[in-house]
């Protein structure tokens, strides 16, 4: 069914917005002013285009309208400053206007959008700021939408975004294509932010789950866009595959009453076949290509789970080997926990518990509910009922996730009832 024309225009505007913002920011070197101007241009398009039809080159139209608005603002501002006899600007107004006259820039979509992502996800910003700014400037979400997704008041989110912009200004982060050697690190920061956006939506399952799962879709959409911009980057492909293979299980992750369903109990017929097929094809095409990084390995692990017809048919030996590989790549205690689970599945619960014992000394895992949750699971498999119940309860008291607490308490209750 074709989309109604207004919806098509909205989709188009959303897709064009980051490229337009990137192009305008590059020209005017003032992110905040550029963003305001692009917002005005998008609004103008939303009213003009349904009435007058699409312009021949929608992207150029938007850039031109935004640039014109910005020039108007700059002129007004310059006049005001002139009156006040204060002239402070990174780029003198005359030069800004001169730059704007060059409507047909030499930059490409790839550079404009990518550099915008580099700026929004810069490591000088806190993750929370980077997430908010990326959703706003690249994702095109309204401040209200972002505030709802993170369950904070709109004024708080508006302030967070405005502070992020100030940090960019204050730390002198330039809107420019980073040098090749720096590019990898910058791309890594972008992937991390996109992954956080995706996980934020995926991990939630309480209250306004519909709004929150939109964050997963947005993380997926932005990663798809990034993959289109840098199709040769194996880690970006790996990240996209990881998201597809994880998101495919979304419908099976919670039951009708909203309770979490662990992977081994999920109804696999509920998995999204199309997303699975796309994710599997992507990771299978990517893995043999070049340097293997952590996102690709995580996608490969997800693929092994998703390819199994049933939980019993899971190839745990392969998963154990992949977690071993991942552990050598990253010093992450959560990876070590998952490695313990895989070891238990291959060599029996005692092997997993021995690994946990060694991990308990890690200060990053002290008081962490995941350690107790995994321990409880392995103790249960080892037949240590009482200890397992105690660990499930202790994990439940420590988790900050409502649905996870419910799940853990139900495990404890279930075990208490089996004599």
């Amino acid at each position, binding site marked *: 069914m074709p989309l109604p024309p207004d919806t098509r225009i909205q989709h188009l505007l959303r897709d064009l917005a980051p490229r337009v913002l990137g192009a305008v920011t590059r020209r005017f070197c003032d992110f905040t002013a550029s963003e305001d101007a692009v917002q005005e241009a998008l609004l103008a398009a939303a009213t003009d285009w349904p009435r007058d039809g699409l312009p021949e080159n929608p992207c150029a139209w938007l850039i031109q309208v935004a640039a014109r608005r910005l020039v108007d603002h700059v002129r007004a501002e310059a006049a005001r400053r002139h009156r006040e006899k204060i002239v402070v600007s990174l780029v003198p107004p005359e030069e800004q206007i001169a730059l704007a006259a060059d409507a047909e820039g030499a930059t490409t979509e790839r550079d404009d959008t990518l550099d915008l992502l580099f700026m929004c996800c810069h490591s000088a910003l806190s993750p929370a700021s980077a997430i908010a700014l990326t959703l706003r400037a690249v994702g095109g979400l309204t401040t209200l939408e972002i505030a709802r997704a993170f369950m904070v008041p709109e004024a708080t989110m508006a302030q967070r975004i405005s502070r992020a912009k100030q940090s960019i200004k204050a730390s002198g982060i330039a809107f420019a294509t980073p040098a090749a050697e720096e590019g990898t690190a910058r791309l890594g920061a972008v992937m991390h932010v996109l992954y956080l956006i995706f996980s934020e939506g995926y991990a939630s399952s309480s209250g306004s789950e519909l709004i929150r799962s939109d964050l997963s879709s947005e993380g997926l959409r932005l990663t798809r866009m990034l993959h289109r911009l840098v199709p040769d980057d194996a880690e970006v492909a790996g990240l996209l595959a990881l998201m597809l293979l994880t998101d495919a299980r979304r419908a099976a992750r919670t039951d009708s009453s909203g309770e979490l369903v662990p992977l081994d109990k999920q109804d696999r017929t509920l998995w999204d076949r199309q997303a699975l097929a796309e994710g599997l094809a992507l990771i299978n095409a990517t893995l043999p290509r070049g340097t293997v990084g952590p996102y690709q390995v995580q996608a490969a692990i997800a693929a092994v789970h998703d390819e199994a017809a049933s939980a019993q048919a899971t190839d745990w030996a392969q998963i154990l080997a992949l977690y071993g590989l991942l552990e050598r790549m990253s010093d992450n205690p959560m990876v070590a926990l998952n490695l313990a689970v895989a070891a238990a599945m291959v060599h029996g619960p005692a092997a997993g518990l021995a690994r946990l014992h060694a991990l308990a000394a890690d200060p990053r895992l002290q008081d962490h509910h995941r350690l107790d949750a995994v321990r409880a699971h392995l103790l249960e498999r080892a037949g240590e009922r009482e200890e397992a119940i105690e660990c499930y*309860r202790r994990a439940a*008291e*420590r988790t900050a996730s*409502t649905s996870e*607490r419910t799940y853990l308490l*139900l495990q404890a*209750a279930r075990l*208490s009832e089996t004599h």
Partner: protein
Amino acid sequence: MKYMLMMNTPGGGPYKITSWPQQDFRAHIAFMRSFATKLRESGELVAAEGLSGPDQAKRVRAASDGQPVTDGVFPEAKEFLAGYWIVDVESPERAYRIAAEASAAPGPGGKPLNMPIEVRQVMSEPPKDLP
């Protein structure tokens, strides 16, 4: 007018939700979910949050240099705040009625808990034109 409804739960005893049978625990969770949904649908819910367990709670004071000084964990506390609702209602009576409904959440054996709910009015801005 806005009211905050605070669910204060004794540290042990029959309220110790961690030791309830599955069925009773499920019924309690289902009740809490539908309670929040009902308040949202009636347009009265402003906010509702559950708090994580008290065993990791800290009491914080500023030292003379302004730095935080944290004070232990209180697993033996007699009572702790388990969660709260903020509702925007027409009258205090309506707030009490909502509180009573929450108080009767099902406990072990499906029996109403009749737990105490503290109801406090939320301070509002002064009226626009004070005489």
